[in-house]
């Protein structure tokens, strides 16, 4: 067993590693390629950063490719992203031509790798049109949708669907997100990596360093939302919730920390709106962090009393999972994958408004023993359901089931 697998075994137990070996043995020699649009920033890149090495540690032939695009392309795909999450969006013909052109260019660059691969995972909408350039593809192609596409803009969905129906299967994070498609639709929630810099245990001294670094008072309660500066994450609503709760808890501090990603051109605009809403309140700490600030984010989450993720649309909400892994109660928007993770009184609270969030902040700050109990339950819940090893088991079983579509059960020996 490699050192990497040994490390995971210490966290998840021997049984899961045993499962991984058995499925991986059935996939030996199968060439697997994942394609997305950014090498860092955002949940997809974070998952692939660990999924690929873990696959290789199991002896699988797995690789990760990133398509290249320009700002016009990424503006178009960001509009797709917003449209998939329900925002009514008009996308010009010229933007669509750019989208198709960039996909065509990347198809030529990736042709030697994708043409003969047995399994190809295409992540999200940016590279979705690659499939149009591989009519003679050898393998099974799977489109992986990471966003909440339950109520997409009809025009954009109709356009993207023309490409997506050509895939052999799709993956959505939740059944609510699944659109009707003429191929198998697998349901696989994403995951976090318990051994990554963002989620590993940190020494208390390292956590303590973030207080002077960001001018946070360690003696006073602190709540935080760690997210990209994105309209659907509702950072303004978080500030409103904080302001309402602060009337009752005057010593409350709020941290809004996030970064941008190369494929998200809206981040700067939202950041300015957030700074304006904070009105120079010294207890609101707005931190625009570089993409590699994993240990800082880890320390901020561990230093927080409560984790907020007040999204109004959410694919899954990995920051919720991260907060739960660190034994923190989570107050989350009653949307998307947050609904799967946050269960009232078990792992945190679901809220629909800034007022609802403020009430739950007050409640949790009032009862430290409940915070602790909820935190313990949340960590166990993540361990059982949302770690990267489970995610890889799901991906590998999907590959096997695609190869045996008619059987109700598959048995490994």
């Amino acid at each position, binding site marked *: 067993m490699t050192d990497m697998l040994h490390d995971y075994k210490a966290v998840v137990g021997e*049984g899961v590693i045993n499962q991984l070996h058995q499925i991986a043995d059935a996939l030996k020699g199968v060439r697997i390629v994942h394609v997305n649009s950014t090498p860092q920033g955002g949940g997809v890149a974070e998952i692939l950063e660990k999924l690929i090495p873990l696959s290789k540690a199991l002896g699988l032939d797995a690789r990760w490719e990133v398509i290249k695009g320009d700002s016009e392309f990424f503006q178009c795909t960001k509009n797709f992203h917003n449209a998939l999450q329900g925002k009514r969006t008009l996308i010009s013909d010229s933007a669509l031509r750019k989208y198709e052109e960039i996909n065509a260019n990347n198809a030529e660059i990736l042709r030697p790798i994708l043409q003969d691969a047995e399994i190809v995972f295409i992540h999200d909408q940016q590279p979705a049109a690659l499939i149009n350039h591989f009519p003679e593809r050898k393998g099974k192609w799977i489109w992986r949708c990471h966003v909440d596409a339950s109520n997409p803009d009809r025009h954009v969905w109709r356009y993207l669907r023309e490409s997506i129906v050509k895939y052999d299967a799709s993956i959505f994070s939740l059944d609510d997100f*699944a659109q*009707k498609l003429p191929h198998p639709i*697998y349901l696989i929630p994403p995951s976090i990596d318990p051994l990554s810099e963002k989620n590993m245990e940190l020494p208390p001294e390292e956590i303590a360093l973030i207080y002077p670094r960001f001018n946070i008072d360690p003696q006073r309660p602190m709540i935080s939302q760690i997210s990209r500066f994105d309209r659907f994450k509702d950072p303004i609503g978080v500030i409103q919730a904080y302001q309402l709760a602060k009337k009752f808890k005057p010593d409350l501090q709020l941290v809004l920390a996030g970064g941008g990603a190369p494929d998200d051109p809206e981040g700067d605009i939202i950041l300015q709106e957030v700074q304006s809403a904070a009105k120079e309140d010294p207890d609101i700490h707005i931190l625009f962090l570089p993409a590699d600030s994993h240990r800082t984010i880890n320390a901020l989450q561990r230093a927080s009393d409560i984790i907020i993720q007040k999204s109004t649309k959410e694919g899954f909400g990995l920051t919720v999972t991260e907060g739960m892994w660190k034994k923190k109660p989570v107050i989350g928007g009653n949307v998307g994958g947050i609904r799967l993770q946050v269960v009232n009184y078990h792992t945190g609270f679901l809220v629909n408004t800034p007022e609802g969030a403020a009430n739950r902040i007050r409640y949790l700050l009032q009862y430290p023993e409940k915070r602790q109990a909820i935190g313990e339950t949340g960590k166990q819940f993540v361990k059982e359901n949302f770690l990267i090893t489970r995610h890889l088991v*799901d991906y590998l079983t999907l590959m096997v*089931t695609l190869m045996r579509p008619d059987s109700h*059960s598959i048995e490994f020996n």
Partner: protein
Amino acid sequence: MSTTTSPFLVKDCVLSTISTGEHAGTLIEFRDKLATIHEGCIYHHFWGGHLRPAFIDPEYHNDFAAWAHHTLHDDILAERLGIIDPTEFSDIELLRRAVLEVIEERLDEREFFYWSKKQDHFHFVRSKIIIFSTPFQIAAPFDLINIVPTMSTHSIFYHFIDAKRRSPEGLDDFSIWLKSFGQDYDDLIHKLRLIDPYFFSLVELRKEIVKIITNYFIKDKS
């Protein structure tokens, strides 16, 4: 006691979950979809809940009943659906028919029906079970005491819940294996049969099985 019985091979499993893309927002829609939906959905919504990332609902033991209660707010329907024991049906189509009968009856009784918000629609999902071998074998019944506490919750699901679907007699795998020793363990088989698995999380179910086995082999014999 037979000495030629094969050892009990401990298995593990996961469910690969597949959406049908079909969903229902009202009871009439639900009935119409249920009538023709892939039979794997019936299996999944009766048994699959145990392996889903969720906290166990102690009141409703299948997804249909839970939806009737939580979303349609029709507790009469929820109670009738919740009492259906899937192990009583030898064929999944008979089980489907039984669920449809309950819904039809309720449709006849009521003059109006609640609808659900889109985010609370019932989504029809099916699953494939993926079964793994493990390094563990149980050579003699007494060894159940040592091995069962170490089994994963998914192993417990496979051997105790999924087994009842696979067995024509509706028995769990432990009981089927114990029967291969003749009548020596009929009392233990009877006690295992009295466990109602739908009220437990898998962790609690494992504890309950361990308690029964331990009482049988140690406390009751001492």
